[in-house]
């Protein structure tokens, strides 16, 4: 690539030389079959994944993008208003290079249901699907959404390998409390299902279990007192019915984990130039490295644009003050400039702090757009900015 680019936004003002994340090289690389976008909530992850997917499709990849919770108008523009777990073609693209784009919105509950149904007999599946504990687990278990996003990724990947339907899968991750949730979710779910207490619930009160019956009695009594006998019974039924599925779940979780570690996968960490988002991004980057997950780089969204004139914030404020209450419009323009220069400087500080601590992480900085993105043109624009950042 010989094209020169000018940096926009905070990086333009820093000396920290993070390597540039070359998004086009990433999406053009046919060895890359999976791109996972992750980061904390509210940083534009969904938009980034959709923009990457669209750009890849128009550059000739056959892409499917799995989104979690797109803004209504963006979902409409992509033709995925229904939560039906089925990828649907996005129309209005330039497919002259032979690519294509399907999009789907993840339905966490039905993905979970499908897994249960595929792993057991119809009778047993029906029994499990009705149990109140299963309902709680499948709708609001901390991490179910993360786990199901990864499960769906695994499913699409397996199907695509068989029928060649897609050569690139782009996954958005849920707006987790912590970005780590989704890496931990499969492990957490399987260790939860392996938990000592679950084993205990499964153990009939005889045989070797007698050995710990003193402790057990204490616990059963305490539990009955607190949650009531009915809940305890529901719990036992659930665990007993679910027991045969544990092995399958664990195996799938491990498969997905290996898929994420594989060479064909690339992680994009998405952040905004704010302390919390970048702290989370730093944490996540380190975690990906520790887990030997292939990190492609960091996307910093919504960066303030470098002001056009080089006057410093202080200089502008001083000049505004010298106007001494007169020329209010000019004074306001100077204050505006000062505010912008300060924003840019503080974002630059945050980003260069990240770059100093993570000198090997390639980075692209996307300037803030004046309006929200809710159509394909907007996504194209974001894609172009991503590639040139």
């Amino acid at each position, binding site marked *: 690539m010989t094209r020169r680019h000018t940096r926009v936004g905070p990086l333009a003002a820093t000396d920290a030389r993070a390597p540039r994340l070359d998004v086009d090289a990433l999406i053009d690389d046919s060895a890359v079959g999976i791109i996972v976008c992750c980061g904390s909530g*509210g940083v534009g992850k969904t938009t980034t994944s959709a923009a990457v997917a669209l750009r890849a499709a128009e550059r000739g990849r056959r892409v499917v993008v799995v989104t979690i919770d797109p803004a209504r108008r963006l979902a409409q523009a992509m033709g995925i208003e229904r939560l039906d777990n089925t990828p649907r073609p996005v129309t209005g693209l330039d497919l002259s290079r032979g690519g294509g784009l399907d999009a789907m919105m993840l339905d966490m509950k039905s993905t979970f249901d499908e897994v249960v149904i595929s792993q057991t007999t119809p009778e047993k599946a029906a029994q499990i699907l009705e149990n109140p504990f299963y309902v709680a687990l499948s709708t609001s278990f901390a991490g179910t959404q993360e786990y199901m996003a990864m499960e769906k990724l695994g499913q699409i990947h397996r199907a695509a390998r068989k029928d060649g339907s897609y050569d690139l899968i782009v996954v958005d991750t849920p707006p987790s409390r912590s970005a780590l949730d989704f890496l931990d979710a499969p492990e957490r779910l399987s260790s939860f299902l392996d*938990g*000592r207490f679950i084993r205990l619930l499964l153990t009939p009160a005889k045989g070797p279990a007698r050995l710990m019956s003193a402790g057990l009695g204490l616990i059963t009594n305490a539990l009955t007192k607190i949650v*009531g006998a009915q809940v305890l019974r529901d719990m036992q039924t659930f665990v007993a019915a679910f027991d045969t599925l544990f092995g399958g779940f664990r195996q799938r979780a491990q498969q997905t984990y290996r898929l994420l570690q594989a060479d064909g996968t690339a992680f994009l960490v998405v952040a905004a130039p704010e302390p919390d988002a970048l702290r989370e991004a730093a944490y996540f980057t380190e975690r990906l490295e520790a887990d030997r997950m292939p990190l492609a780089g960091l996307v910093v969204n919504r960066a303030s644009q470098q002001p056009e*004139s080089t006057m410093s914030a202080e200089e502008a404020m001083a000049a505004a003050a010298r*106007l001494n209450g007169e020329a209010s419009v000019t004074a306001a323009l100077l*204050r505006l400039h000062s505010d912008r220069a*300060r924003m840019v400087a503080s974002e630059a500080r945050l980003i260069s702090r990240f770059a100093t601590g993570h000198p090997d992480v390639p980075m692209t900085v996307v300037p803030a757009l004046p309006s929200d993105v809710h159509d394909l043109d907007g996504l194209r624009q974001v894609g172009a900015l991503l590639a040139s950042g």
Partner: protein
Amino acid sequence: MTEAASSDWPDVQVHVVTGKGGTGKSTVAAALALALASTGKNVLLCEVEGRQGIARMFDVEPLPYAEIRIAQGLPGPDGHAGVVHALHIDPESALLEYLAMYYKLGRAGRALDRFGVIDFATTIAPGVRDVLLTGKVYEAAQRNSRNKGAIRYDAVVLDAPPTGRITQFLNVNSELAGLAKVGPIKSQSDTVMTLFRSERTKVHLVTVLEEMPVQETADGIDDLRANDLPVGGVVVNLVRPQDLSAETLAAARAGELDRTGIEEDLRKAGLEVDDALLDGLLTEAHDHAVRRGLEDSQRQLVAQLGVPTYELPRIAGGVELGDLYELAAQLRRQGMA
């Protein structure tokens, strides 16, 4: 200090603060706690998501499961200032404390922990998890004789889960309904719900003037109302500078600002003016005016929500402890505390 408006929520004991990710709800919760303390109230600021955001904002050590004094409000006219304590609530500690307080389950409590029951209870059923978190908030708001020697608070501010999850979080009753139909945990959740549904609680939503957060705020309000949860105000956060008049903004958008006049002013201000400087300022004014226009259309949508609204400025360079006091003062002036 400038005079404060009278509070819009004088009788509210529990202020729940929610908002979409990235809107700064934790900052607003902290500022609200300080604002309430500046009216002489003793305030407890709680967080439930394990982020330790309060500790970072107030520049103190990570918070344990204990009420720690972190700040004092600004003294009012009578020289009296309320105090802000902070509490980081995690479900495991809340459950153990609950067991000790209500069941005197010292040994059994530990046994439950050892057998992974606590983990089980707080992981499998987020309903249970939320009952424990909200239950602790309830306990702090309505101190009774069981918790001897505990501090009594005039108000509790809860830095709550984000808008998308808030109704589910507060509506512990219905979340639990499928799991526990009778029993102590059910009656516990009933009691908590009584407080949350009463006029002593308000849920405030934090937004920024962008399309998605505003839409999510509107959806959140509908959702809360549909579940009989009391909606408080909307705090519009991170508002851009409001320096320019509507006329000037319109002129800036149309590219019709008085270039020659501005050039003269800049010289008057002692600057060396060249085209780069002048063009730069005019382009910046144009961009700003475009964004302000978009903000204004979102502001109209916020106004149509039919709840009191408050605005807080975006602070270039990030919010520091001193800024929290300034934000608190602004909330007070606008009548939020």
